[in-house]
C-alpha cells in the first residue's frame, strides 16, 4: 500500500480547548454554550480565527450539531460535518481520525473535533431508560436488570480475570495513578481529593468486580481539538502534535450485547492495534506516555495488554502505582487524572492531554515525551485509538 493512503504526520492538532470541568449537573451554562466556549478556547490556543474553521467532527450522538455551531460562530463556509456512530465514548479518537481524514482528502482545511455535555440538562449517558420498549435486542437485556454499562463490562472483566488470573491489583493501581495525577491538575474535578489503597479497598461495590473508584465520573463541560495540515501548523501559535495514526476498532460480532461476540474477553482494540503501530511507524516500546480511556479500570488493563504495553502474564507486575506515575514511572498513564479524576468528557479530555504531553504543557509532564498514545472506549463495540507525535518523530 502506498504511503499516499496513510494520514501519518499529514495533519496536526494545533489547538486544544476545554471549559471548566464541573461535577454532574453543576454547569451554569447550557451544553451548547459549553461547546462554543471550548471551541473558542481551542482557537485562541492555536492562534486561529474561529471563522477559519470549515469542518466539525463529533461522536456518541452529540447534541450540538455543526450547522448550529457554524451559525453561532459566523463560519462562512461549512464544508464538512461528521458524526461517529455511537458506541459509548469509543468515538473520541475516531473523531480526531475523521477530522484528519477530511483534511487529507481535501474536504476541509481546519476541522474541530469536539464533545460537550451538560448531564444536568439532558440526563446521564450510558444508562438505559426505564421507558424504553422491551423489544428487539433490548428484550434480552433490560428485563434482567442490565441497566448500566458498568454491569455489562463487569461481566467481561470477571471473565478476563478468570481466564488470565490478573487484574485485581492493576485496577487499584490505575485508579490511584489517576487520582495522583489529578492532584497536580487544577482543572481536575478531583483536584484536592487523594486516593490511597485503604480508601480504594474499603469503597463500596457497584457491581463486582467494580468498586466506586473503578468507575468513571459524571461531569458537565466541553472539550475541543483543532486540526489542520501539518505544513500550515508552523505559522500557528503552538508546536504541532502530529497525528501519527488513528484507527477505529470493531471486531467480529463485537456489537453483540445480547448475542454472542466471538472474542468476548477483549478491550476491543485487537483489530485496530495491528494497523495503528504500522501507520504510526512506531512500536509500543516507542510510546512515552499513555492516555487510556477508563470507563472502568478493568478495561484499561485489557487495553494496555492489547496495545502491547504489557502482557497477560505480567500485567499486575507492570501496572503498579509506581510504574504508572508521570513522576518517575516507566509507563506514565492518564497524566491529567483521566476519566476517573480529571473529568469524564467521554474521553476527549484524554486526547487533549496527549497533545499537551507532546507540547510539554502537561501538569504532569513526562520528560521529553515525543510519542503519546490516547485510546477511547475499551470493551465497546467500536473503540478507537490514536498516536500523536512531535514533529521530529517523522525524521
Amino acid at each position, binding site marked *: 500500500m502506498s504511503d499516499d493512503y496513510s494520514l501519518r504526520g499529514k495533519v496536526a492538532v494545533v489547538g486544544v480547548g476545554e471549559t471548566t470541568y464541573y461535577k454532574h449537573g453543576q454547569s451554569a451554562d447550557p451544553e451548547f454554550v459549553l461547546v462554543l466556549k471550548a471551541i473558542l478556547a481551542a482557537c485562541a490556543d492555536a492562534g486561529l480565527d474561529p471563522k477559519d474553521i470549515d469542518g466539525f467532527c463529533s461522536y456518541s450522538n452529540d447534541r450540538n450539531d455543526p450547522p448550529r455551531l457554524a451559525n453561532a460562530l459566523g463560519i462562512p463556509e461549512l464544508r464538512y460535518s461528521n458524526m461517529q456512530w455511537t458506541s459509548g465514548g469509543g468515538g473520541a479518537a475516531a473523531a480526531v481520525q475523521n477530522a484528519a481524514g477530511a483534511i487529507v482528502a481535501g474536504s476541509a482545511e481546519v476541522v474541530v473535533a469536539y464533545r460537550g455535555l451538560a448531564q444536568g440538562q439532558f440526563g446521564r449517558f450510558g444508562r438505559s431508560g426505564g421507558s424504553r420498549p422491551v423489544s428487539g435486542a433490548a428484550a434480552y437485556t433490560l*428485563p434482567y436488570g442490565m441497566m448500566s454499562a458498568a454491569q455489562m463490562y463487569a461481566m467481561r472483566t470477571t471473565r478476563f480475570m478468570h481466564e488470565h488470573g490478573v487484574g485485581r491489583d492493576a485496577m487499584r493501581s490505575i485508579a490511584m495513578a489517576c487520582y495522583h495525577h489529578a492532584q497536580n491538575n487544577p482543572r481536575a474535578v478531583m483536584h484536592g481529593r487523594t486516593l490511597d489503597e485503604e480508601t480504594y479497598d474499603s469503597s463500596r461495590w457497584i457491581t463486582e468486580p467494580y468498586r466506586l473508584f473503578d468507575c468513571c465520573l459524571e461531569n458537565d463541560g466541553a472539550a475541543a481539538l483543532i486540526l489542520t495540515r501539518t505544513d500550515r501548523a508552523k505559522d500557528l501559535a503552538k508546536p504541532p502534535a502530529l497525528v501519527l495514526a488513528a484507527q477505529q476498532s470493531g471486531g467480529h460480532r463485537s456489537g453483540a450485547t445480547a448475542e454472542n461476540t466471538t472474542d468476548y474477553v477483549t478491550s476491543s482494540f485487537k483489530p485496530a492495534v495491528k494497523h495503528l503501530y504500522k501507520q504510526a511507524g512506531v512500536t509500543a516500546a516507542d510510546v512515552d506516555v499513555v492516555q487510556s480511556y477508563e470507563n472502568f479500570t478493568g478495561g484499561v488493563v485489557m487495553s494496555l495488554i492489547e496495545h502491547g504495553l504489557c502482557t497477560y502474564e505480567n500485567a499486575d507486575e507492570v501496572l503498579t502505582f509506581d510504574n504508572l506515575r508521570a513522576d518517575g514511572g516507566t509507563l506514565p498513564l492518564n497524566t491529567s487524572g483521566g476519566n476517573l479524576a480529571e473529568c469524564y468528557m467521554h474521553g476527549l479530555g484524554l486526547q487533549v492531554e496527549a497533545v499537551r504531553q507532546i507540547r510539554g504543557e502537561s501538569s504532569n509532564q513526562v520528560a521529553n515525551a515525543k510519542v503519546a498514545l490516547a485510546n477511547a472506549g475499551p470493551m465497546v463495540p467500536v473503540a478507537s485509538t490514536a498516536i500523536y507525535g512531535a514533529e521530529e518523530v517523522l525524521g
Partner: protein
Amino acid sequence: MKLPAKAPEPNSENTPFFDGARQGRLVLPRCGDCGFVIWFPRQICPECSSQDVSWFEASGKGSIYSCTVTRRIPGGWGKVTPFVLAYVELEEGPRVMTNIVDCDPEHVSIGDRVEAVFEEATNRDGESGPPLLRFRVREG
C-alpha cells in the same frame, strides 16, 4: 427477593421463542444451512446470512460463563440488590444474558451448572406477558 419481571414484547421474528417460553420450553432457532444455533432469536443467520432458520427445543441446561453481583443501581432494581446478572453458556452453544435466581449471590461463580426456569412477567399495562428465561443452579 423476587426480581422485577417486565415482560418482553414479541415480534414476528421471535414468536416461536416466546410461545415456547409460555409453555415453559426453551425453543431456539437453528440455521438450516450451517447449523449455527442463534441467539438472540431471529430469522436470518448471523453466521452465514441464510434465511433457512428452523426452531427446536433446547435442553435448558448450561453453565455460568461470566457474572456480576450488582450491589448499587438506581431505580426499581436498586430495591432488590444484591442480584446476579450473568451470561449463561447453553449446552447448545449460545451465551444468554440472564439472572441466576434462588441462589445466594455470594456463592455464584463462573462454571456453576445451571438450568432454565421461566418466571412470570407483566407488560407495561400490567397484563401477563411472555415469561422470562432465568436460571437456577442445578445439582449434578
